[in-house]
């Protein structure tokens, strides 16, 4: 079993503190509780760490935390919606009952919208207008009609239907890859990264995002609920990468994608050690 790279322990606590502040417990109420339940649930915080590491590579992560919190909030909202009975109808998430199980479907939906709304508001308040506009637009694109929403729609509508490989890639890209790329780009933008930095990081995130999703598919086939923190074999009715390539082939492709992600970091040299370790982790992960 692969464990999280050590540097995660450096980043996770400040991210956790920032997320605590992102949705304060006060004034409370079911929607806030549901938001906090999902947002603060035990998680690796891969996307938030990606924002911070990308910012560090491009100079400094001192201004990246709002973008990191926003991407985690967007991700959390997508998880709530993804688990709904009308979507994947998943009972488990992050080792706990899904939000709609815990708080009811209506509250869960409102919590998802609350998180999404707060993410954009947080960005608007944290950055100067030009940068806020760029990162907000970036995240909005990642969520929108060529991002999470489109990916989720296609995914839901494709259940029990055969998919072409290109369609499956498009779903994965929109559901996972786009937000990974947006996270890396947002980190770079917050640190004033150059165009070439952004292109390299985007390539890294694009390959890493797909690898992440392929490994997810693999874990759904080979993992246990204890390992993954969510229900397994839930994708049995869906076409996944494993459907096309088999378990070994999917693992092979995931490894190659992670290697490609690492090679895209070549312009940064040794400074990119942490991101390279993150790619290694994704390739080996069992949780």
């Amino acid at each position: 079993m692969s464990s999280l790279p050590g540097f995660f322990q450096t980043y996770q606590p400040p991210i956790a503190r920032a997320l605590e502040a992102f949705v304060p417990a006060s004034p409370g109420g079911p929607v806030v509780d549901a938001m906090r339940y999902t947002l603060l649930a035990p998680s690796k915080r891969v996307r938030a760490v990606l924002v911070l590491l990308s910012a560090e590579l491009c100079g400094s992560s001192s201004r990246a935390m709002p973008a990191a919190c926003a991407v985690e909030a967007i991700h959390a909202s997508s998880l709530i919606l993804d688990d709904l009975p009308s979507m994947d109808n998943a009972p488990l998430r992050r080792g706990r009952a899904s939000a709609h199980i815990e708080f009811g479907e209506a509250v869960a939906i409102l919590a998802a919208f609350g998180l999404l709304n707060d993410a954009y508001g947080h960005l608007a308040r944290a950055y100067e207008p030009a940068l806020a506009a760029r990162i907000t637009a970036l995240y909005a694109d990642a969520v929108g009609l060529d991002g999470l929403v489109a990916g989720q729609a296609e995914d839901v509508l494709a259940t029990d239907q055969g998919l072409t490989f290109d369609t499956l890639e498009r779903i994965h890209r929109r559901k996972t890859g786009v937000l990974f790329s947006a996270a890396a780009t947002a980190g770079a933008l917050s640190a004033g990264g150059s165009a070439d930095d952004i292109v390299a990081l985007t390539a890294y995130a694009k390959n890493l995002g797909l690898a992440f999703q392929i490994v997810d598919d693999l874990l759904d086939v080979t993992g246990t609920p204890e390992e993954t923190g969510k229900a397994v074999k839930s994708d049995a009715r869906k076409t996944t990468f494993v459907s096309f390539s088999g378990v070994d082939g999917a693992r092979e492709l995931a490894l190659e994608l992670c290697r490609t992600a690492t090679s895209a970091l070549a312009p940064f040299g040794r400074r990119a050690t942490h991101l390279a370790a993150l790619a290694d982790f994704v390739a080996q992960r069992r949780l």
Partner: protein
Amino acid sequence: MTAGPPTGDVDALRERLRALGYLDARVDRFVLGGAATRGRAVSLAVAASLRIGLLAGVLLGPAAVIGLATRAPGLVTSVTDALVLAAYLTVPFGIASALLACVAILTAGWLARQSASDPAFAARARRAAIAAGLFVAAACLVYLTLWWRAAVPPGAWGAQLLALAVAASIAILIGHVVTISVLAYLVRLGLSGLPMGSPLSSLRVVVPLGVMALGGAMVLLRALAPQADPVVQTAPLTVVPTGVRVVVVAVDGVDVTTLTRLRSGGNLPTFDRLLGGSTAPLAVSIDRDPAQVWTTLATGQPVERHGIRALEGRQLAGVEGRVGAGSRLTTATDLLRLTRPTIASGDDRRVPTFWEVAATAGLRTAVVHWWATWPATEASLATVLSDRAILRLEQGGALAGEMAPAGVYEPLRQSAASRTARVDARVAGVADGLAPDIAAIVDRSARLDATVLDLATDAALGGQDLLTMYLPGLDIAQHALFPESPAESLAPAAAAERVRALDGYYAFLDRVIGATVLRDAPPSLVTMLVTQPGRVAVGPATASGSVLALAGPIAATGHVETMALSAEALAPTVLRVLGVPVAADLAATAADALVTPAFMQAFPVRPVATYGERRTRPAASTGQPLDREMIERMRSLGYVR
């Protein structure tokens, strides 16, 4: 299960992922990298085009050097030359490719936008992007094929396939980056729904396309390839001894009218002797470039064959090889220190001279001070005191191709003092009674000619079957005394003194030739005098013609040819007289009318197909070439500006 790659076909999935921009897409990232943060679509197109230009320049520049090296012999003399030239060529090719790519991207984008509201927009946009990429790829492929057409020898199938495979790869790569740039441009325009990836990322497309490109390039290459010359074997040259020795005296700057006038006074006995056999006018070349004209005379081939186009060339900064000179562009590049003047070199000559042919045939031959004979190469087998030999003897130091074989250098250097004394004695009185400035010109020219003649008769050269020398003094003096058309801008008295100085120079030449190469000449000696009117006689109004005169036992004494011979006739005539077979591919035949019928009968023409190409093994060289000194010398003598 679904349409798509079959389960377990990981290779197919990998291929598809690559086409969708995953796995290795470094070139794509490089091309689109500069455009990542630019706002406007046009900015993206321009930024991507600049990077495509950089990529294409880096790939096409070295490719162009290969073709250029073949088309401009002498330009690329080493790997360093090739690298420096490639660096130079990267710039224009990069700019041209960037412009082409930008036009292709914007045009394809514009065409795609025309159908933005069409339901089939995505397919059309994709087609437009592919078409733009293929257009640029085709342009690159045609260009590379045409360049390498010159570089790859006809019939060398392996080399052709390799060259064209490289060309096809470069072309497809550039076509691919243009395609992805068009797609990125359309996305930046806000047009959504475009399919991901470029088809030129997929091996399933690239391999058949590459095969088609390779086939097309092969067809193009075959269709446009120059007709290969039939393979002509250079047969060993067998000399039939004719029993004569030949001395070729080449005098530049001779005005035939003046020579005739002076001979009528009975004061030029040596010229009388040289011209007392048979004579023929030589066709006067309007182009007075001495390196070109005298190389034509020496090789029997026109400038297109021998390759020496001009005395003055240009050397690119950092490159040993040379290119032609004379354009306004080179004036500008001189000012920018990108180029510098250089003197015509034997490295640029592609065919052998008559003394090299005779030496190859086994005769003992020597040449002194002929144009474009530096660097002297021992491969020629002749004894060569090149056009830089006198400079080397003056400057001292180790040889750098100034003479060959290298063994002649030391004895010539040791005899420098006695040679100077002899030259002093021979030029004594040549400038008496002249104004100081005129006297200086005449004295300098006379010393140069006297030195050439003294070297030609130095014992270090040994006995020769063929001795050839070039005397520049009269041309130098004439050019200095009458820099423009003769006498027009001078006062009558000044012009008269200069004419008198030149008349005196003819007498000096007559005396010094007689006292050196013709002194104690055996009866079997055949002399050949060849003259050119020199640089002053520009244009038909003042051209006074050239002469080829043959004297000696085999000369058809008294014969005066009325039809002008071409300048290329000298070389075959010399070789014919020496009993060397005459090559059929020379630009002229021997001037048979100048020799006796008995000689003709005894030694009929023996043709060979060709003398082949010049052998250019580098001369043994340990010293520094006297490039700068040579330029200064040529400048002081009025040859270069």
